[in-house]
């Protein structure tokens, strides 16, 4: 993966930049020792690493503003970082970049139940937002798999989703407002406790902009009352086509489960060997969860079971208690770990129209043979967001490149059938060079013009999202501006 060459001018004035940052921040907030900056050399896309010029850990919005003002004056690229759980390389630095980590910004600022929102600093982890309100019967809906570790800042940057977004939507649908610092240090408030934008929906375009428009330091998030209960059902089929039809029929019938998860045979086998959840050995497995009171759950599950039976399942198991519910989810939740036991893997994130599910799974199977690399599929079937896991051996020369080529082919297939490159992980560096598959030059130009407005010098996370060749002219001017 190509990254831009570091700006020699910035590298040569490292001491001055570090000293200016130290003057602006509390003790210990600037990490510049080469051994220590290694902690920030990569995120969860660990195949790519580069220690940054330095890392800063501000404790307030004002400190973030001071940092950005200094970097702006010095012409230094800034890479914002939440918890570093990005699978797309969203927080990968370059050698001339300052990593701006929001980990110390982790307080709850305001909890308001009558108006159903919580205001938090952006370094707070996703799960701890729910943690702050759950004893009062509320929760924060977006639930990415990394929710124990990932920060709200990163969730906003990538517009993160999760297993339950079929019903509750993704980050953008649950975000009411932000405090954001612009690259020149200006602090802005966008949105708030009210529901819609008064002018252009700036919040809508900030969410999912991968840290390229500003650094979000505080967020107002919608919280929801917890449902009375939830219950999953597990359904096994002997063909992917039939499982896909079952999903489509359930949705058409008007039932809106909170989650419809899908696993294919390679994934079921790996998971069973690893977690022993007691899954049936079959071609495809659905886990469908519904919410409500016990009576409501019974009503919805009766409809789902009736539809599922029409398609002749090889297994249909409804959780009778919390223990059985946990067992049904156990396999799904350990699927990534199970695949990791077999080999190194790359996790993809394309989305397809749900009607294309059987065709895409068949094609992935064929390509798997052509490339000679195994692949397991586990994904959110209700919304077509796939997570093919391609197995490879990181120690075998050429295997990573082969795996990346296979991954690119799968993502191109997703676009070809009417879908997209990434459903919830973001573009980062991982899918950057595939953007031209999905977008015309004019489409990309329109997006880059938005960055021109927010960050005219292209200093914020500049080497992400857009193919390097496409953004080259804009990035080149940063040197001149400095």
């Amino acid at each position, binding site marked *: 993966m190509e990254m831009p060459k570091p700006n020699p001018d910035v590298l040569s004035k490292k001491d001055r930049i570090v000293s200016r940052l130290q003057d602006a921040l509390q003790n210990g907030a600037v990490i510049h020792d080469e051994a220590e900056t290694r902690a920030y050399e990569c995120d969860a896309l660990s195949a790519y690493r580069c220690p940054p010029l330095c890392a800063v850990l501000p404790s307030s919005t004002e400190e973030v503003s001071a940092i950005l003002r200094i970097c702006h004056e010095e012409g230094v690229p800034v890479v914002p970082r939440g918890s570093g759980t990005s699978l797309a390389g969203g927080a990968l630095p370059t050698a001339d970049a300052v990593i701006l980590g929001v980990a110390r910004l982790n307080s709850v600022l305001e909890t308001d139940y009558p108006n159903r929102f919580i205001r938090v600093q952006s370094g707070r982890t996703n799960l701890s937002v729910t943690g702050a309100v759950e004893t009062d019967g*509320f929760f924060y809906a977006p639930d990415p798999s990394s929710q124990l570790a990932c920060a709200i800042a990163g969730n906003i940057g990538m517009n993160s989703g999760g297993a339950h977004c079929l019903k509750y939507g993704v980050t953008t649908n649950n975000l009411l407002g932000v405090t954001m610092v612009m690259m020149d240090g200006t602090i*802005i408030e966008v949105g708030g*406790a*009210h529901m819609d934008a008064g002018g*252009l929906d700036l919040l809508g375009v900030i969410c999912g902009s991968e840290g390229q428009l500003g650094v979000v330091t505080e967020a107002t998030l919608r919280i929801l009352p917890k449902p009375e209960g939830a219950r999953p059902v597990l359904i096994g089929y002997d063909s992917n086509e039939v499982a896909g039809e079952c999903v489509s029929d359930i949705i058409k019938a008007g039932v809106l489960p909170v989650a419809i998860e899908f696993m294919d045979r390679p994934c079921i086998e790996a998971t069973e060997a690893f977690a022993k959840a007691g899954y049936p050995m079959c071609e495809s497995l659905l886990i469908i969860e519904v919410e409500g009171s016990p009576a409501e759950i019974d009503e919805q599950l009766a409809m789902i079971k009736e539809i599922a039976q029409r398609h002749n399942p090889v297994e249909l198991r409804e959780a009778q208690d919390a223990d059985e519910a946990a067992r049904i989810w156990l396999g799904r939740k350990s699927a990534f770990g199970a695949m990791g036991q077999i080999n190194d893997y790359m996790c993809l994130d394309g989305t397809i129209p749900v009607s294309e599910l059987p065709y895409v799974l068949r094609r992935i199977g064929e390509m798997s043979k052509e490339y000679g690399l195994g692949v397991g599929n586990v994904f959110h079937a209700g919304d077509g967001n796939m997570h093919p896991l391609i197995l490879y051996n990181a120690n075998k020369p050429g295997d990573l490149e082969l795996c990346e080529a296979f991954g690119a082919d799968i993502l191109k297939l997703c676009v070809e059938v009417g879908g997209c490159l990434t459903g919830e992980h973001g573009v980062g560096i991982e899918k950057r060079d595939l*953007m031209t598959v999905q977008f015309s030059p004019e489409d990309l130009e329109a997006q880059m013009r938005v960055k021109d407005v927010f960050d005219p010098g292209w200093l914020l996370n500049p080497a992400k999202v857009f193919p390097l060749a496409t953004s080259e002219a804009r990035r080149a001017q940063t040197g001149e501006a400095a």
Partner: protein
Amino acid sequence: MIRPNSEEELAGIVAGAKGPLSIQGGGTRGFADNAAGERLTTSGITGITLYEPGALTLVARAGTQLEEIRERLAKDNQRLPFEPMDHRALLGTEGEPTIGGVVAANISGPRRVMVGAARDYVLGLRFVDGRGTVIRNGGRVMKNVTGYDLVKLLSGSYGTLGILTEVSLKVLPKVAASATIVLKGLSDAQAVAAMAAALGSPFEVSGASHNPGTGETLLRLEGFEESVRYRSERLAELLKPFAPPRIEAKPDAVAKLWAAIRDVTAFAGKEGDVWRLSVKPSDAPALVARAGAKQALYDWGGGLVWLRTDAGSNLRARLGAFAGHATLIRASAETRAHLGVFQPEPAPLARLSAGLRAQFDPRGILNPGMMG
């Protein structure tokens, strides 16, 4: 009136435009009246191009009439979840609302409080920018974070960044049953507190409105029959401390109640200006008291307040600073020009918005002056 019949024709017209264009869909919202320039309508760019009920997806060209979309969805027992308002009664306009107009103005009805706004159901769109270039963003799948979300930026941009030509929407199944709990005689503050209690319960309230004129506070529940019955009873129990609840479960009666709230029919045909306030729900009663309006209607649990005021009066000046914004929906051309339809933004935001308009419409020909 310029009326192109295709995206390509529209792109040519914009590229060759010599002066400002005042853009409208079906013309029912009267927003185009606020912009100077030659009138252009997208009502000729029509047709549902894709509908997959099993994927909950519908794609339609911008000029497609809302009614056509509703009818098509109804055949497969589906609907637009965000329940867009019909402005005709309130504004005294004619014509047929189009889906492009709904998205361009981000029009959402009472269900917004539970399911989100129009913008939350737009999966993708195509538009012609101020240069005459066709641009596509988003797609037709429900989860998509590929590149910047221009879909949100364009939704509610009132044609100032580009002219929509096609939108792709997430739709949802129609519900089998609905019911409304009616509370009578609450003060505005009590009503907002009752609505907050209902919306903070696990009973999935899909509408929360208070009409000080009739003294009725309404809470809507939707879903499968048994579920609606169960939740109605539980919610009624919860709301007893506020006032004796009555459960309205007749389908026609429930539909009529909420159509009236959606379309603000209580204000229709009555003199004066109409404002729309977006606020923190618990702030609403105090703001309404300060407004000194002739009439008020609360929706979205208090997050949305409709006010009917003396013609020409400056509501924003009267309210002073508050968290949220006030949009002038109905007034004379002079009042709209004088007060501005949209609430002025704080300077840094206004700068960003102006910067975006300059990027997407460098000649300033798309509904100029409409949003700032």
